[in-house]
């Protein structure tokens, strides 16, 4: 199996692709019986420092319905200067530029190691990046101050020629005009009125260039940049102005009566931001960055009324259908998200408040456009500040780790059809012969729009097996705007072998990538959870797991103890166990906003991060040896250990009982116990390392045995000891968890029992 592991790893590193199955079942029926669909996790912009983009355009298959890109899998006739498309078998002439082609003089795209290649397209105008800040002013003074500072700081991080704009909102929405000298101007909109894009553009004076003659189309391209420049200006021109403007930003001046929430017109603000960009820079990479410190309380998109006595909806309310504004608000934001997506603009949401802010309703803004969703308690926390700063982090070339306006096109060889995709994308509704009628995730198309991308953005792409062939091939073509404003095309072409599930099940089994499969199944589960009742999803997941075990487990009927799973499946049930308990599927103890946020991140992170989310990592530090990963189990919680848990969203450092006592006694300050000091320091350093790399910044929790924050750890570990199995008490085997949740052992027992039973 090691070979497969290597193979998988190698492929991932080269192509950013991980398939659930690396050997494909050869018929539709067999594929169905495999339980876990044939699917892959694709990280379109996986960082490839070793892959310099080529400076020419790709060669396309000449068949209009195909247009696949020349790749190493194509058959090339060097003499005839022909190449055969490996998807449609069309024979194509090489373009004149390839005249010198020969076996020894191959273009990069024909070399096997360039199964992933990136082209730089020189065509078309290069549009600068656009950053539109949408800032809530209904904040506490220190929050606002912190936010202002963050924003001011961000100006220095932006590329000098990128365009920035500023919209602030509270009870009103203000679109700030940045071009003016002296007096600062802003256009103000009522926060309660839903405006159409046309109205917004009219009111901002965007639609009416000074010449009233509309029919003259040619004139418009010249006019537009001019008009829009009032609101979106190159940073280098106005950063002083904007810094001052941000500095003078006041809290929303409208009085907030006792017992009321401030009136916050988030819905209109976003609508205007979308409308503004739509009118000025359609189909240009742009980032709308929404900073909000509370829920929208008025106008379209309001999530909760301004009466404080009425709390914002909870899962309970939603189940009871008691969330008055939810549907309407969701619809509003969906409409906006779709419009933004259609124009290639992405929307980020940075929500910092102690209470919920309506992320549930607004999630589609980020999810459909590839924006970020960041949730924090306050803008005045390092969590927000560093997260925000990290958005503008740069890669080894000094470019932002972000890309815009991407279109992902998937081409398959005839044996496969595309069932759908799950990730921060919207369908472009491009039907084709390779599009399956069965949808998994966002389906019915072979192309998706991903307005905001970063090197970790990962999509789950699901396929349907139609028939067998020689070598199944899939080509992923991602057009995008690089942060250097270049248009680029990244092409990844992968192929896997087919195997007959009847005869070669072992091969298929061995080529199972349980990590990828877990994540892909989890994505499906989460995707379902968005629209279905929680228990249904769990039941579905369970059934899938049971079927998988039945299919690939080795057992004797009706004998649970005989049940075995091969190595390539061994971890899968455990992933499923933790997935069932994860916040992605369990809403208990999570607000709707939290759930939305967690799901948001889950749907876009790459495999490693996703796995961490599903099953947090636990490290143990002790005097007994170097730090070691330990089971995510209550038995790992020991008095003389320090635990470091990474759940992706949280980093928890937990001092065992004894360690905590020692620390309180101050041993670490005594020179003779320097080793204790080092022990205490070790997890901190490691945590710091994780913190440095992670986006978004995780919540950093430093706690100890009996500490209130220890709940973060206790809620995650497998409750192998609870108040229900008291026999464990007093033993040095860990800490009991006060929960009624089933433990992994119980779960596995049941699983085995069900798997071997012939009842299902």
């Amino acid at each position, binding site marked *: 199996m090691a070979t497969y592991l290597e193979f998988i790893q190698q492929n991932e590193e080269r192509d950013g692709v991980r398939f659930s199955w690396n050997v494909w079942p050869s018929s539709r029926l067999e594929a169905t019986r495999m339980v876990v669909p044939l699917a892959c996790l694709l990280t379109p912009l996986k960082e490839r420092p070793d892959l310099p983009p080529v400076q020419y355009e790709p060669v396309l298959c000449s068949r209009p319905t195909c247009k696949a890109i020349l790749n190493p899998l194509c058959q090339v006739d060097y003499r005839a200067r022909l190449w055969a498309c490996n998807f449609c078998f069309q024979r194509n002439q090489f373009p004149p530029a390839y005249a010198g082609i020969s076996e020894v003089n191959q273009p990069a795209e024909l070399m096997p190691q360039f199964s992933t290649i990136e082209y730089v397209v020189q065509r078309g105008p290069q549009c600068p990046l656009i950053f539109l800040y949408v800032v809530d002013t209904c904040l506490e003074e220190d929050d606002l101050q912190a936010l202002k500072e963050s924003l001011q700081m961000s100006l220095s991080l932006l590329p000098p020629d990128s365009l920035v704009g500023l919209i602030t909102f509270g009870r009103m929405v*203000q679109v700030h005009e940045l071009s003016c000298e002296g007096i*600062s*101007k802003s256009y*103000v909109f*009522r926060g309660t009125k839903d405006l159409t894009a046309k109205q917004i553009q009219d009111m*901002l*004076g965007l639609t009416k260039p000074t010449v009233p003659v509309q029919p003259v189309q040619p004139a418009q391209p010249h006019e537009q940049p001019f008009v829009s420049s009032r609101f979106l200006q190159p940073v280098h021109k106005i950063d002083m102005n904007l810094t001052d403007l941000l500095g003078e930003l*006041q809290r929303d*001046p*409208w009085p907030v009566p006792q017992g009321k929430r401030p009136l916050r017109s988030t819905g209109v603000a976003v609508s205007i931001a979308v409308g503004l960009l739509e009118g000025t820079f359609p189909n240009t990479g742009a980032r709308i960055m929404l900073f909000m410190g509370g829920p929208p309380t008025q106008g379209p998109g309001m999530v909760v009324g301004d009466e404080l006595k009425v709390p914002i909806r909870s899962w309970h309310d939603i189940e009871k259908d008691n969330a008055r504004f939810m549907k309407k608000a969701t619809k509003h934001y969906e409409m906006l998200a779709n419009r933004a997506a259609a124009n290639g603009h992405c929307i980020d949401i940075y929500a910092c408040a102690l209470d919920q802010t309506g992320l549930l309703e607004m999630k589609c803004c980020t999810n459909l456009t590839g924006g970020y969703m960041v949730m924090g308690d306050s803008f005045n926390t390092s969590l927000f500040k560093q997260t925000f700063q990290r958005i503008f982090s740069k890669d080894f070339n000094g470019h932002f780790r972000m890309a815009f306006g991407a279109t992902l096109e998937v081409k398959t060889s005839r044996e496969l059809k595309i069932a759908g995709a799950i990730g921060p994308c919207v369908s472009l509704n491009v039907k084709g012969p390779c599009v399956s009628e069965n949808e998994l995730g966002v389906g019915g198309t072979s192309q998706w729009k991903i307005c905001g991308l970063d090197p970790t953005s990962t999509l789950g792409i699901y396929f349907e097996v139609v028939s067998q062939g020689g070598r199944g091939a899939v080509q992923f073509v991602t057009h995008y705007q690089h942060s250097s404003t270049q248009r680029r095309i990244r092409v990844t072409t992968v192929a896997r072998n087919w195997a007959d599930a009847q005869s070669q099940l072992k091969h298929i089994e061995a080529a199972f990538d349980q990590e990828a499969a877990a994540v892909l199944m989890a994505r499906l589960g989460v995707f379902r959870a968005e629209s279905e009742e929680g228990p249904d999803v769990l039941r579905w997941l369970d059934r899938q797991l049971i079927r998988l075990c039945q299919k690939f487990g080795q057992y004797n009927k009706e004998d649970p103890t005989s049940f075995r799973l091969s190595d390539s499946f061994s971890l899968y049930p455990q992933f499923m166990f933790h997935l069932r308990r994860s916040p992605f599927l369990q809403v208990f103890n999570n607000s709707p906003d939290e759930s939305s946020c967690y799901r948001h991140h889950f749907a876009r992170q790459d495999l490693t991060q996703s796995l961490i989310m599903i099953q947090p990592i636990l490290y143990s530090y002790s005097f007994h040896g170097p730090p070691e990963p330990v089971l995510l189990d209550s038995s790992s919680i020991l008095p003389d250990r320090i635990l470091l848990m990474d759940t992706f969203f949280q980093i928890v450092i937990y001092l065992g009982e004894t360690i905590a006592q020692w620390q309180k006694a101050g041993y670490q300050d005594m020179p003779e116990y320097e080793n204790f000091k080092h022990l205490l320091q070790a997890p901190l350093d490691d945590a710091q390392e994780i913190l440095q790399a992670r986006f978004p910044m995780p919540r950093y929790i430093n706690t100890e045995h009996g500490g209130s924050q220890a709940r973060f750890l206790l809620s995650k570990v497998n409750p192998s000891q609870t108040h229900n199995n008291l026999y464990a008490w007093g033993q040095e085997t860990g800490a009991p968890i006060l929960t009624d949740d089933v433990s992994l052992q119980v779960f596995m027992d049941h699983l085995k029992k069900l798997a071997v039973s012939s009842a299902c």
Partner: protein
Amino acid sequence: MNVNQSAPPVPPFGQPQPVYPGYHQSSYGGQPGSTAAPTPYGAYNGPVPGYQQTPPPGMSRAPPSSGAPPASTAQAPGGQAAHGQFGQGDVQNGPSSTVQMQRLPGSQPFGSAPLVPVVSQPAVLQPYGPPPTSAQVTAQLAGMHISGAVAPVPPTSGLGYGPPTSLASASGSFPNSGLYGSYPQGQAPPLGQAQGHPGAQPPQRSVPPQASSFTPSASGGPRMPSMTGPLLPGQSFGGPPVSQPNHISSPPPQALTPGTQMSGPPGPPPPMHSSQQPGYQLQQNGSFGPVRGPQPNYGSPYPGTATFGSQPGPPQPLPPKRLDPDAIPSPIQVIEDDRNNRGSEPFITGVRGQVPPLVTTNFLVKDQGNASPRYIRCTSYNIPCTSDMAKQAQVPLAAVIKPLARLPPEEASPYVVDHGESGPLRCNRCKAYMCPFMQFIEGGRRFQCCFCSCINDVPPQYFQHLDHTGKRVDAYDRPELSLGSYEFLATVDYCKNNKFPSPPAFIFMIDVSYNAIRSGLVRLLCEELKSLLDFLPREGGAEESAIRVGFVTYNKVLHFYNVKSSLAQPQMMVVSDVGDMFVPLLDGFLVNVNESRAVITSLLDQIPEMFADTRETETVFAPVIQAGMEALKAAECAGKLFLFHTSLPIAEAPGKLKNRDDRKLINTDKEKTLFQPQTGVYQTLAKECVAQGCCVDLFLFPNQYVDVATLSVVPQLTGGSVYKYACFQVENDQERFLSDLRRDVQKVVGFDAVMRVRTSTGIRAVDFFGAFYMSNTTDVELAGLDGDKTVTVEFKHDDRLNEESGALLQCALLYTSCAGQRRLRIHNLALNCCTQLADLYRNCETDTLINYMAKFAYRGVLNSPVKTVRDTLITQCAQILACYRKNCASPSSAGQLILPECMKLLPVYLNCVLKSDVLQPGAEVTTDDRAYVRQLVTSMDVAETNVFFYPRLLPLTKSPIENTTEPPAVRASEERLSNGDIYLLENGLNLFLWVGASVQQGVVQSLFGVSSFSQITSGLSVLPVLDNLLSKKVRGLIDGLRAQRSRYMKLIVVKQEDKLEMLFKHFLVEDKSLSGGASYVDFLCHMHKEIRQLLS
């Protein structure tokens, strides 16, 4: 009377009797009388001579030889008569007459000295007379008739007069136009007279000389010859006219004299009556005409007239054509008389039903229990006891109330009374406020309400013992018990939402569209505001104004400004959602000027720059007001919006207007639509504004039609003002605009006001005119009210009034002062009640009446065709006068025009109203102008309407330069202008300097700094500052006039015979206007005819 007079002249002229009849018919028949009536006034000078002459003319030959001598004889009788009258015991006449007498004798060298003197005297007397004769109103009327009296004389003499009578008879048939024509003829004669008497006249001065100057130049020469060949040449003026004047001149004395003469014979009725009678008789005589035969007199004049009408005899027409304008009641004379008689002593308001001095008179007021006439003026101070009487008289009962009128510095503003927490003491039933008329009873424990008779307990803290007269001992310590006007501090119960108001705010809303920028308006305004903001109205001794300010600019979108003091730079907030206006900011929009000075200054510096390159020409309007109103609402205060607007709001927004100006609608039934707002949006908006206490002042700078009728709806309903500067250019209009602006910003305003007029039982306030809004039938709601705004209230009977108790008015105004204090201003006024119509007519005020009628008519045009409105006015006027004639004047011939003394100016003023731009637009008057004027008049006070309708025409070069007092005005007629003089004309809105073509070069040099008339720039608006006496004096005078008016009057220099003169002539209201308005004389005749019709 006129008839008579005219008659006499006629004969001389010739005897185109045939013409005559025609004339009579037109209106002459009646008119002659009427004309006569008018003549009496002006006549003084002229008339008198007329008389003298007339007799001769009557003779028929006399005229030729020299009207004078015969006239003298004729007069002599007259004169005697006058004496006689005096003798009879008219004290007033006596004195005046005596004086006159003395002079006259001296002056008159005529052979028939005795007689002559007499005659002349009357003339002199007249001026004097009127005042003394107050009681003798009738006498004046008589005066009118005087001529008539003269006529009688003639009869005595025999010859001449007879004929006139015949004329009268003829008169009946004439059409109006005919009438007019006839007048002219009449006028011609007067001239003749003047000449005839030159000697005698000098004393009388003004009239004769003027007359002479005019006619001669005009056509006197030619006419004369043609007409009365013999006579005329010499007299030029023609005796006949003179005679008319007499009639007209009615000046009491004269009238009396004639009257006496007449009366003498007829019988010794009261002097006045008698005098009148004679006059009438004359007319009657005229009617008798046939009997007397000597119609020729008439005839001749008429012929002349005839010519007018149909121009039978070209030559004649001119000379004969006029009645002597001097003979008809002269506003100038009335004003002068009132000034002389009542200007010197303070007007003490203690007595019920006193008629105050005219608005044109400077007088002091001492408040002793009734509101000063500066606050309230009534059409009549004596109210008929019953509605029947009131209906019969048709005299509107109305009060013109100016609750916050500014007082001269010598008069104290109303005391503020604080009744503590319980608030002002009021009647429990009718809620009237404590006032001097409340009756304390039961030893002071209770009081009876003077309005509703309800008996109320006196609260213990207010108790006070009564003295032996039943008066509270502390009556003189308490303003509310001793004064007519005072203020109460309001308690929280009187405040909106039961919260004391916050200080008001001013919001400046500036149009920054292309037009406004290009004309330089924005720059000018911003510059001015910087300094002007230091002069916001403040209360009492407050160090700084409590008023906050805010700024908005707009074109098709609105720009609000955050000028919070903590900002380094103002912030602009653009609201482009004009369809659904809102206020984008709260904090920092309305600020204290001193705190935010730096930011405001910066803003005002930048506004012109920011929009310097604007190409936006479209504007919105309703959203602007809405925005201001919303801002005030958000700030929870009342306030005022200053809107500076340039163009028709055609941008897509609520209140969008289209150009609907259509001159073709004029004189059609649809004309009223020009005055009506285009859309209901503005009314709705205004209603909201009123509810918020948001007053809107609108400054318009249109280059073309902006639909003032619609745009002014909100200012009108919110108690605001509209200013209009057509084709604004900084160089030309800067001074005017800035002056208006300064005044408007600085003036003290009351906000969020409610006015209620309570009356004692029997009458009731039923109708209100002015700039305000009413949501019910009793409360006048004013978002803002300043010291210039006037509300006219009409009363009707709902029960019998009691002569004993009179009628009481109490006007209570609840308002927020500019410091945010809630107050009640109370004005009380007690009026008399009468059972005799004569009392009513004796206590009327024509100026107030005109104020009411104008407002009534101006409102009428909204709903009725203009012609209907005019006819209504004429009919009402005729009814008023006919009622007087029928019930109060002593019986006399129907052919005589008899006017009540108090209303003798009613015809001339009413004619001015009828000719005004609103009711009879000239070709050059735009629809906007009409709507603008209409709207202005609605809230004018009496003084303003007075001068607006009858402009003041001041000769500048007649009196010696050293004479620093204001020169006496002359009548607004072209005839009064001498081409060797310079005149100043003003009507409260316009100011003209008319320069005669043959003004002395020295005068031109010292006034204009150029060497000749031809070098004077026509249309000049500023007089050069020259260091000489004349220049200083004239400029001083102009400044003085401007200071008197609430709006800055832009000066326009008009040269004689220049294009601009047409504009100027428009204001010579006694003349026939180009747009078809009748001349004074013609109108008088017409009125007479109407009256006669009513009487018959």
